[in-house]
């Protein structure tokens, strides 16, 4: 919210943007683990697992290298049931469909690569169904924006955090701190590049407070300016995964288990 404010204000004033050539430092590669288990909000137990492994690359490189041949396992901590997640045809992506998720149990992710073991624990975080997505007619700043109004009924007395994918690289994370238990709606504004007359899926995932902080910082780091009065100092973003064999060599990335709802939306 605060970041939005400042981007708007800076844009409003006499300012100009220019892509420049800049030399940035280069750091040794780091392993990145993007692990997500999602269960549809309407399904009692069936879930899908997707784990993406990659290494960091230099900032201006054209691609990010994936990591193949890792051993990926997910264990139900209460029952010790193990799922072996195998690599799919998509290199670096390890997935499994139609698993039966124990909604009350924590799960441990264990990845072994070249003798080092990476571990993380997570548990299902509940969400709520999306009541509606409708297009509005307001604009925000340039007058070319497309407004989308998202509505949902928040659950009272439960600390809820939401990760919302609005499609086309538009993401948002929110907290119910100021609207706990309410029938809540808010507007999101797409810029003029957002396609019209094309079906896009809007999804809403439940996350916990630690994941909310992680994604809030990730989104802020991936779009905001370095330097300038409104930046907060950036530094390495740690997730919830550790390297048990060699703690100094920690991986980046996050492991989360979310309840998910997804609705289609077509802008006019």
């Amino acid at each position, binding site marked *: 919210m605060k970041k939005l404010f400042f981007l708007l204000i800076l844009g409003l004033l006499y300012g100009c943007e220019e892509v420049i050539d800049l030399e940035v*430092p280069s750091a040794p590669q780091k392993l990145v683990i993007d692990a997500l288990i999602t269960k549809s909000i309407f399904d009692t137990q069936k879930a899908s697992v997707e784990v993406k492994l990659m290494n960091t690359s230099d900032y201006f490189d054209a691609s990010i290298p994936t990591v193949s041949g890792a051993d990926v396992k997910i264990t139900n901590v209460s029952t010790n049931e193990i799922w072996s997640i195998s690599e799919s045809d998509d290199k670096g992506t390890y997935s499994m469909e139609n698993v039966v998720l124990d909604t009350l149990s924590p799960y441990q992710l264990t990845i072994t690569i070249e003798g080092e073991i990476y571990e993380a624990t997570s548990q299902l975080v509940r969400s709520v169904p999306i009541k509606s997505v409708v297009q509005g007619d307001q604009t925000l700043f340039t007058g070319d924006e497309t407004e989308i109004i998202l509505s949902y009924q928040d659950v009272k007395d439960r600390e809820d955090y939401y990760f919302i994918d609005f499609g086309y690289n538009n993401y948002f994370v929110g907290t119910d701190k100021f*609207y706990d238990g309410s029938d809540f709606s808010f*507007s999101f504004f797409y810029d003029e590049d957002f396609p019209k007359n094309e079906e896009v899926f809007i999804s809403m995932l439940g996350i916990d407070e630690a994941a909310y902080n992680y994604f809030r910082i990730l989104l802020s780091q991936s779009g905001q300016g370095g330097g300038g009065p409104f930046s907060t100092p950036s530094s390495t973003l740690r*997730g919830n995964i550790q390297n048990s064999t060699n703690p100094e060599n920690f991986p980046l990335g996050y492991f989360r288990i979310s309840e998910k709802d997804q609705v289609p939306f077509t802008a006019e």
Partner: protein
Amino acid sequence: MKRHPFVLVFLFCFFFVSAQKNTTLSGLITASESNESLIGVTILIPELNTGTVSNSYGFYSISVPSGTYEVYVRFLGFKELKTQIDLSQNVELNIALDETSEELEEVFVSSSIEDIILRKPQMSLNSLTAKTIRQTPTVLGEADVLKAIQLLPGISSAGEGASGFNVRGGAADQNLITLDEAIIFNSSHLFGFFSVFNPDAIKDLKLYKGGIPAKYGGRVSSVLDIYQKEGNSKEFKMNGGIGLISSRLIAEGPLEKDKGSFLLGARGTYAHLFLKLSDNPNSAYFYDLNTKLSYQFDKNNRMYLSGYFGRDVFNIDQSFLAVYGNSVFNLRWNHLFSPKLFSNLSLIYSDYYYGLTLDFVGFNWDSGIRNFNLKYDFKNYITDKTTLNFGVNAIHYTFNPGSIEPNRDTSGINPSQLDKKTAFEGSLYADATQQISERFSIQYGLRINHFIRFGQKGMNLYANDQPVIYNAQLGIYESAAITGEYPDTNTSKSIENYTHFEPRLTLSYGANEYSLKVSYNRINQYLHLISNTNSPTPLDVWAPSGPYIKPQQLDQWAFGYFKKYNTSYSLQTEVFYKDIKNRLDYIDGADLVANEAIERVLLNGKSRAYGLEILFKKSQGAFQGWLAYTLSKSEQQTPGIGQGDPGINQGEWYDTPYDKTHDLSITGSYQLSTKWRLNGNFILQTGQPVTYPNGQYEIAGIVAPNYGLRNENRLPAYHRVDISATYSPKNQKRWKNEWVFGIYNLYNRKNAASIAFRQNTKTMTNEAVRFSIFGIVPAITYNFKF
């Protein structure tokens, strides 16, 4: 309590020092045309090799052995006055000086007189007259107080678009800014593009960067003391200016001829109206109002009533509205107990408000600080060699961190009120300036502060009193769980208090045309601006010290060498070292918006700054100006909470966001003819510290940069040239006017205000995008006076 006998002892010393029979020459110094009191006028008695200076209310007093003397009165911009006074008994002499546009002629006074002034033990002080401020070319043609002071050494900002300013490597919340003795919390309009001070309403400005006298306290880096004009008590006058972006108007006149006056000033921008014309529904504007009423009851009593009201408004197509600003109201009473004892009592009410309405979320947020302040300051001009300042100051604060409510019926927002905080800051001070010998003088003082944080609802308790814990497994800092609340919520009872003694000392040694000065001061700061952005923003909240936030504590040493080459040239060089304990920093990604328990994201550390300042000035002749160069370092260290954790940046020292290694400003003004004056600036600075990414990765479809340690890189160097020309047509009697033509950033350098690292959504590659605020900006302003 141990210190009090010390204070009493030195107070007593003075009454015995002046054993000879002493007579006093005292009075008020005003400008003859308007009766406006003049601050900082020099009154000299060359025969006795002594002199004094008029105070912030235009009052002067000098006590010497009885006799008849020649007295010289000098002030820049006014005709020098020379008169003979028979001081066989106390004489009250009110002096009215005539303005002159001619340069001061060195006919009456020899250069040794300058030394008297040079020997005064005040260092690290910059004064600016309203005239100098108006002459410096600026963006959009608007003369500006904060832009002008940044041309002086040791003063900079965190970049274009940054609110506030940084003094000697200090943070923007460490500056005590006062307007007619009232505290101003936000000194900028529109993110630093304008200051909140209308230059036409200002009489005098002093900026203390170090050697801060005991009269001031509460902010560790500097004191910016600004006094407004009282208004012309002889006749009605108006002056103003019309510019491309903003305009201002001042009306002043007598309430009762020669006894009372009023001043009314208004200023505002209207650039947003151009946006409306082009169908752009957004607007950003500010306005401010200055008012002052002054009345002289009799020769010993004067009263002033001042007010200031300013607001900034940002409106983005009705979806988003932000409003913030200061309001201040104060009543002051100058009373002369005797020709040697001057006093000023101030009663001040100040309010800083900030509010946000987000219609697209349905959310309305109001926040603010309110304070009541009582100050009683005394100045005792004991002899011409000894002056004593003492007084008391009491401030009561109420902080509203946020009142949240729905802004329309269809909003799902629940109303809530974040817990209000209250605090009290009280101080006693005494400070003496003594000329020990012909060359050696000293200023020493002590300030004693007592700060109380009162009880409130919602003051949390944590296990082991640790609101932040370190998760060693994940290698991150986390907020600790709240284990309960302080049981006593009584807002009249103290839950934490601090008592501090602050010694202040300056020594000065003066010889022919040069002087050496050294100073030490200790200052504590009890209010902190909670902000983890590089520069303050209007949404940032001020928080008082308490059980989890300790007061910042500064020790500053400075050493300076001052030399006057002849009447035109002077050189000031200073080196300084500052050490600040309890400087806060934030855990990575701390979310400060509407955060009720700030202590859960704070880490305590320290900061330090050191540097060299050089100011070379030419103050007379057709060409005047100065060159200011500062070489400095400002860094901080946040070592961790003692749980085996590394702290920020591995516990090493790292640059503060406003560290500027080199800062060079050259400014000049040339009177080409009687009608034309040319002004120019050249500014060159090291780029600000920034963190560049050292890699990239992708999570949940988000392509993110990877970063290493904080603030290890620099933005490109900042430099620009500004020029302006002022045209004043001849023969102006009743209606005086001038045109100012200016160009900001003459060679259109796109200085980086920030660099964003993001993925280009069309090409799907990463790019570095430089954002710059001002390219070349021409401006025209029309100023008038009648």
